[in-house]
Structures are given as structure tokens and as C-alpha cells.
């Protein structure tokens, strides 16, 4: 039996026994392939941002948020009504969907008997609902909320519809966060004579808050950029006033952007680009808040 060291890739004389090839083509190729895939996303994002900033540059000033839209004079037009409309709609969306989604998640994780077929059916359907196109929710909101329940095309209808849209995502994110709380914490609490509700309220929820907050903010970021369902719900594209209540007419930034883009005069295109930047800034702020929350309240066990 010969020593195996000699047989494996017998090194050239004069080189150390443990020397390997200086260059492994497969390794480098794979590495460059990965980098190329990554750069596709990055390059396009940078190109897009550069284009939008360039387009928006002439209109990036306080007129954007101080003025209301105008069809005749683009140099005076602004997006104040859309900014306020977005804030109104998204605030009420959060108000409606967060408590509902979190409580539904608590039921599924802490109370539901996973062996029962109906609980499994509900679970499966929530996964499916998260994949339904948003325009379908728009149709649902129009038919059921605006017409059937006669809520009209108001802030309330939009907020309720967007709540339904992001509810499955909130439920799924909250369930993940609740599931990440170690079982030993629940057992410790129950072994001390706490009821199930006390255990959930005092131990599980506080520990799950960071995860639930991050997931929920990301879900709301999705809702804030939605144009399709709110167009369906009659978000008016030309609104000269800010919403004053749940029964107000409204417009939101994505709809306003859509409207300006379809105008023929180039001044409106600059305006649209500026509004896009504004929307991106709002989204970035929300994502930053999610990351901050996660780091601030992240727990170690």
C-alpha cells in the first residue's frame, strides 16, 4: 500500500507537498457569476434612481408639498393633497389591519389546534390570499364596500380595502415573530400558574413585538405604493383639498404620479419624477424605522 499523499495531484518537484493549484477556474467562474447576478439588480436600481433624480431636479423644491395640483399651470402645481391623502389612508390602514392581523396570528399560533382540518384550511387560505393580485382587492372594495355597503369612494373605503390587501402579510409576519419566541418561555410562565392569556399578553407578545413591527411596517410599505386598487376605488386624480375625515374624497401619491405621467406637457413629467422621489423617501423612512425597531428591541435568549 503506497502512501496516498503521492497519488493525489502529485505536486511538481520542488513544490511543497501541500501546495495546490494556484488557480481553480471553476471557483472563479462561479464567483463572477454570482457577482454578475447581484450587479443586475444594483445597476438597474442605480440607473433608475439617477434617471428619476435627473428628471425631478427642476421641480425638487417646496412647491411640491406646498401647492395643490393644477392642470393649467404645471409650474405652480404641487402634490399636497396626495401627500395628505397618503398619510390619511395609510394611517387608517395601519389602525385597521394591525390589531386584526396580530390577533388572528395569536389565535393561529397559540390557540388553534393544528390537527384540526379547519385550522389547516384557514392557514392554507391565508397563504393563498397573500398572493392574490391587488387589483382583485380593488374590485372587492368597489363592489362590496363602496357600492353594497354604500361607503362611497372615500378614505374609509380605501383604508379598509388596503387593510384587506395587507392583512395576510401582517398575519404571516406576526405568526413568524410569535413562533420565534422559545417554547421554554411559555412553559416557564405556565408552570408558575399563569393562564394562557397571561402568558400570551405578558411574555409572548412583548417578546414578539420587534418581529411583528418589522413585518407590519414592510407590509404597510407595500400598501403605500399600491396604485391599482385605489384607482379602482375612485381615488380622484385631481383633488384641490386635503382629506378632512374618513368620508372625504382623496387621492394618493401613486395615483397622482400616474396622472401626471399621462399628461402631454414635459413639465408634468418633471413633477411626476419629483413625486416619485418623495414616495421613495417615505418608503425608505418606513424601512429604516423597521430596521431600527428590529435592532432596538431585538432580544437574545
Amino acid at each position: 500500500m503506497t502512501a496516498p499523499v503521492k497519488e493525489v495531484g502529485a505536486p511538481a518537484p520542488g513544490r511543497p507537498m501541500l501546495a495546490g493549484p494556484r488557480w481553480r477556474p471553476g471557483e472563479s467562474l462561479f464567483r463572477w457569476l454570482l457577482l454578475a447576478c447581484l450587479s443586475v439588480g444594483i445597476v438597474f436600481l442605480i440607473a433608475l434612481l439617477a434617471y428619476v433624480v435627473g428628471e425631478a431636479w427642476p421641480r425638487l423644491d417646496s412647491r411640491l408639498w406646498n401647492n395643490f395640483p393644477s392642470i393649467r399651470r404645471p409650474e405652480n402645481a404641487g402634490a399636497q393633497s396626495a401627500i395628505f391623502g397618503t398619510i390619511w389612508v395609510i394611517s387608517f390602514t395601519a389602525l385597521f389591519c394591525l390589531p386584526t392581523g396580530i390577533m388572528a396570528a395569536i389565535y393561529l399560533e397559540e390557540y388553534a389546534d393544528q390537527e384540526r382540518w379547519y385550522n389547516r384550511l384557514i392557514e392554507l387560505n391565508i397563504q393563498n390570499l397573500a398572493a392574490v393580485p391587488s387589483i382583485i382587492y380593488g374590485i372587492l372594495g368597489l363592489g362590496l364596500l363602496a357600492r353594497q355597503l354604500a361607503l362611497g369612494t372615500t378614505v374609509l373605503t380605501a383604508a379598509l380595502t388596503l387593510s384587506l390587501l395587507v392583512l395576510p402579510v401582517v398575519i404571516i409576519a406576526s405568526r413568524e415573530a410569535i413562533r420565534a419566541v422559545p417554547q421554554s418561555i411559555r412553559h416557564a410562565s405556565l408552570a408558575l400558574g399563569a393562564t394562557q392569556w397571561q402568558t400570551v399578553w405578558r411574555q409572548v407578545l412583548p417578546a414578539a413585538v420587534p418581529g411583528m413591527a418589522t413585518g407590519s411596517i414592510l407590509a404597510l410599505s407595500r400598501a403605500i405604493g399600491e396604485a391599482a386598487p385605489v384607482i379602482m376605488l375612485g381615488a380622484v386624480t385631481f383633488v384641490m383639498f386635503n382629506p378632512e375625515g374618513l368620508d372625504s374624497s382623496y387621492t394618493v401619491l401613486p395615483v397622482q404620479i400616474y396622472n401626471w405621467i399621462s399628461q402631454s406637457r414635459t413639465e408634468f413629467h418633471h413633477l411626476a419624477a419629483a413625486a416619485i422621489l418623495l414616495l421613495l423617501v417615505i418608503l425608505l423612512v418606513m424601512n429604516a424605522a423597521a430596521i431600527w425597531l428590529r435592532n432596538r428591541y431585538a432580544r437574545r435568549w
Partner: protein
Amino acid sequence: MSDPTSRPDAHLPAQQRTDMSAPGAPSEAPGGIKSPQVSFRSAPSLEAPVFEVGSLSVYYGSHEAVRDVNLTVGHRQITALIGPSGCGKSTVLRCFNRMNDLIPTARVVGKIRYHDEDLYGREVDPIEVRRRIGMVFQKPNPFPKSIYDNIAYGPRVGGFKGNLDDLVEETLTHAALWDEVKDKLKSSALALSGGQQQRLCIARTIAVKPEVVLMDEPCSALDPIATAKIEDLMEKLAEEFTIVIVTHNMQQAARVSHRTAFFTADVDDKGERHGRLVEYDETERIFSNPSDRRTEDYISGRFG
């Protein structure tokens, strides 16, 4: 008994260990009711037992995890459950405070009486059970809160109305942890060492003033020094509480317990393990003169 230097002589013959029996245990009737051997002196009595287990079997789904267990747990004694892995000793322990209820497929057959009351009776509320019968787990599992809040949690959820500050100090003193943590009550319990965390968990359990403390391998995640501290604490607590401890560590069982139950696992032709109780007796007897061959093999290290 509280002198730790007396503990390493647990393997000595019974005559030299008699001073290790529980100071708090009633001293009448050597041998007790259930114990057939009366030759040992000062054996803890089993009068007014805390738990009486009869023909207990526990199933997980259709799998019988442990079958036909009969034993009696004496008042203010330390009862050790020992045996190889998968012999069902933790399963039996979890029956005592109905933690097995949390496993949806678990089913308990047979009799467990707690002070003459059926622990699995129709009207029994598991919450009430767990307030009287506390549990300490294998891995220290303090809540991700302050030391103070960890101790105060049980009393708070139980609707405690008195002075919490006093209760926390009293409990931590009792658990011999006060001097180590009194200056950092408001800091996170997770910053403590593993041994301190486990003693905090014991303190947290006795803060609700239970009668029984169940311990499921409380030292298996700890180093020998932390283990020694917990054993000291257990001996001290036995003056006031009834303790049932599951342990893999036979020396530990010999050192701290008054009575020992030895479990083993039978493997059937499908490869499934069925735990059973082989022998239950005074610890001296189990370790010096067991009546079952399997017990002798196990404690002398010949298997398991």
C-alpha cells in the same frame, strides 16, 4: 445535612449516612408505610404522602411512553427519579403538575392522587395545580426581563396583593441568591451566569409559595460548581418544600435524595421504548443493596 462536606460520602453504607435524612421529615415509624425494609434507621416516613401514583401509564398518541408506575412521594422529602434516557422519568414528572396537558397527543391513564385528590379529576384546574406544584426546567429559562420581574412574575399573575419588594427580597434570600444580585435587581436576568439563572428559576418557582417543586434535570446544563450550589439549595429547600427531581446524575441522586425511583426502558420489536419503574425505595437501599438486578447493573455502571 446542610453541611456540603457530608455529601460526597453518599456511597458509604447506610449506617454512616443516617444523619443525612431530612431534618424536616417526621421521625416516627422507621421505614414508613410502603417500605418493606425496616432495617434502616431514621428512614423518612411516607405518612401523609403528597403524591400517590397507581398504575400510571402515559401515552403519546398510540405509543405507550411509560407503563404501570406505582410510587408514593413523601412530604418534605427529596424524591429522585433516575434511569437511562427514554425511560419516561421526565414524562412521569410532568404528570405531577399537568405540564403534559400542553402536549396535544399526551394521554394519562391511571391514578395520581395529590393529598387524596385526583390530580386528573374533572373539576381540577391545571392553573391551580401549577400554583401549588411548581417546576424547574432542564435549561435555565429566565424571562427576558429584569431579575426583579422574574421573581415577581408568578405572584403578579397569581394576583398577589402584598408588598412585592419584600417578597422578592425574602424569596431571593431564601434561594441564597440575594447577596449576589441585590445590587442589580433591575438588570436583565439574562446577564447572569448559567448557574445563577437556574437558581433564579428556582427562586422564581418558590416565590409563589408552592408545596411541591418539580425539577427536570436542573443541573444537566451546569458546571460542577454551579451544580454543587444547586444541590446545597435543594437540601435547604427540602426543609420547607417537597421536591421531586429527575436526574441523569446518579451521584446527585445519592447525595440529595431521600428516596429514589429507578426507571428503565424496554425496547419492543418495533424499536419503540416503553419506560417502566423497576424499583422504588429509600436512596440508601437503592444504592447499597438494590433488590433488582437491573438497578444494580445501572448504578454500578454496567449499562445505561
